[in-house]
Each structure stands twice: as C-alpha cells, then as structure tokens.
C-alpha cells in the first residue's frame, strides 16, 4: 500500500525550456495542422509572442522532466502496474516557444478502491514562466493495480 504520509509532499522545482521545434513536433504527433503551431506569422496574427503550445502540451513538459515516473520509482511501484487514469489542465496565461518554465509538483491525495486492489495517487503541478507568471495547473491521477 502507498504510505499516506506522502500526501502533501512537495518535490524540488524543475525547469524546462520550450523549444519551437518541440511545439511543432508535438502538434504533428497529435495530427493538428493548425498553422499557429507551425508558422510564426500565424501565431503573431492570433496574438501570441511565438508558437503557442497546444492544450495538452504541459503534460509533455512534466514527462520530459520525469516528474510522474520519479514518484513511482520513489514508492517502489512497478511502472507496468501503473496507468494514467485522469488528467486535468487549468490555463492561466499563454505558454509559448521560448518560455522557460519552472514547475512544482506535490502529492494531493492517495486513496484506494476494491479493498486496496486499486490505489490512486493524485498530484498537482504548478507551472510558472520566466516572468513569474502563473501559466498552468495540472492535476494527474495515476492508478496502480495491485
């Protein structure tokens, strides 16, 4: 069982740089051809300082910094037993190529269902840009099959 004392734990801040090429390759992987993700002039026409990151991109930033797997490793959980169960995003400011993002992850909740056969680990991550603007909050729920 996951020790509930982990609830409230905050992890050290992580930093990730949003490169233009990463925005383009992410939009390409989703299959979204909206020109704002590929063309600087289309992004500028839409009111952005550079190519904007698509809505679910912030989770790729978390994965790039190993934030999800880090906690599973710390808890000694086999990643093959863990699955992403729920994900939410709340957007507060534009996230664009060229931004240097600092993130802070903390554990919000741990609970189980079916007498412990399924355990749920809920974390929140706050993203802030290089100007100190609060950009996005993510909430991630991972289910572990015991």
């Amino acid at each position, binding site marked *: 069982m996951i020790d509930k004392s982990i609830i409230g734990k905050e992890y050290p801040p992580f930093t990730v740089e949003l490169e233009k090429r990463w925005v383009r390759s992410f939009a390409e*992987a989703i*299959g*979204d051809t909206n020109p704002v993700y590929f063309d600087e002039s289309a992004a500028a026409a*839409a009111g952005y300082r550079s190519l904007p990151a698509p809505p*679910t991109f912030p989770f*790729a930033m978390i994965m790039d910094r190993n934030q999800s797997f880090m906690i599973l490793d710390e808890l000694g959980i086999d990643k*093959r037993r863990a699955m992403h*169960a729920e994900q939410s995003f709340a*957007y507060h400011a534009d996230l664009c190529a060229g931004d240097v993002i600092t993130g802070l992850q903390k554990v919000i909740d741990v609970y189980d269902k079916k007498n412990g056969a399924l355990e749920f680990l809920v974390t929140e991550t706050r993203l802030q840009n290089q100007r100190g603007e609060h950009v996005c909050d993510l*909430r991630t729920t991972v289910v572990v099959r015991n």
Partner: protein
Amino acid sequence: MVLFKDIEIGGAIPPLTKPAISHLQLALYAGAGADHNPIHVDEAAAKAGGLPGIIAHGMLPLGFLGQLLTQWVPQKQVRTLSARFVAMAFPGDVITCSGKIVAKREQAGEKLVELEIAAQNQKGENLQLGKATVALP
C-alpha cells in the same frame, strides 16, 4: 466567431474525427510527448505487461480533445480541460471527439461556457469522458 449570447445549453459543438491511429503516430507521440514507455511502440513489451498488444498513450486522445476545443474557439479562450481515461485506444482505432454545452455562467468578468466532452472509438465505445471550460465574447 462563437458568441456567448448564441450558445444554448444542450447544444453540440462541431465534432472532430481523426484519422486512424497509426504506429507511426504513436512513435511520434512517444518522442514529442516525452513518454517512452515501450508498451506504446513495442508489441512484445506490451504483451509482457499483460496487455493484448500495443496501446496508444492516454494523452493522445486527450490531445484530440484539446484539438476539438481549439477548432471551435481560439486556444486563448480555453480555460480548463480534463478527462478520465475509461478505456484504452489501440493502433487502427478511429477516434471521434464530441462536446455539448452543459452550463453558462459569468465569473470574474468572463462569460464562461462549460462542456462535457467525450472521445469514442469506431465502435462507439467511450475511451475518455471529460469536461472543459471556455470563455466567449
């Protein structure tokens, strides 16, 4: 332009049907999404993990749900996006995303519309069920 005054509760937004998920797409998403779990690209690894075969990243259909919103309104107007992953997607699946308006409200000077959104496969099975909030002029 989508206007707050024109929105009716219970109304649908334009749906989005994506091309079938391919192995190439999963390889591209593994790279761009920074998720290198082999169950998304390696058949043997997926089977060793107790799966019937390669499965798509859960974040891929959620990315499609993001596109559902941004093909409807400019991305700057999207305030929240969330989903529960209720079933897996596999290579070859054709995903259709849909959304319907469930509430309208004003908060902190913004006109907000709340939606229930869903990603379904070609059999009509729900893969993801979620919610979104957008601001409208």
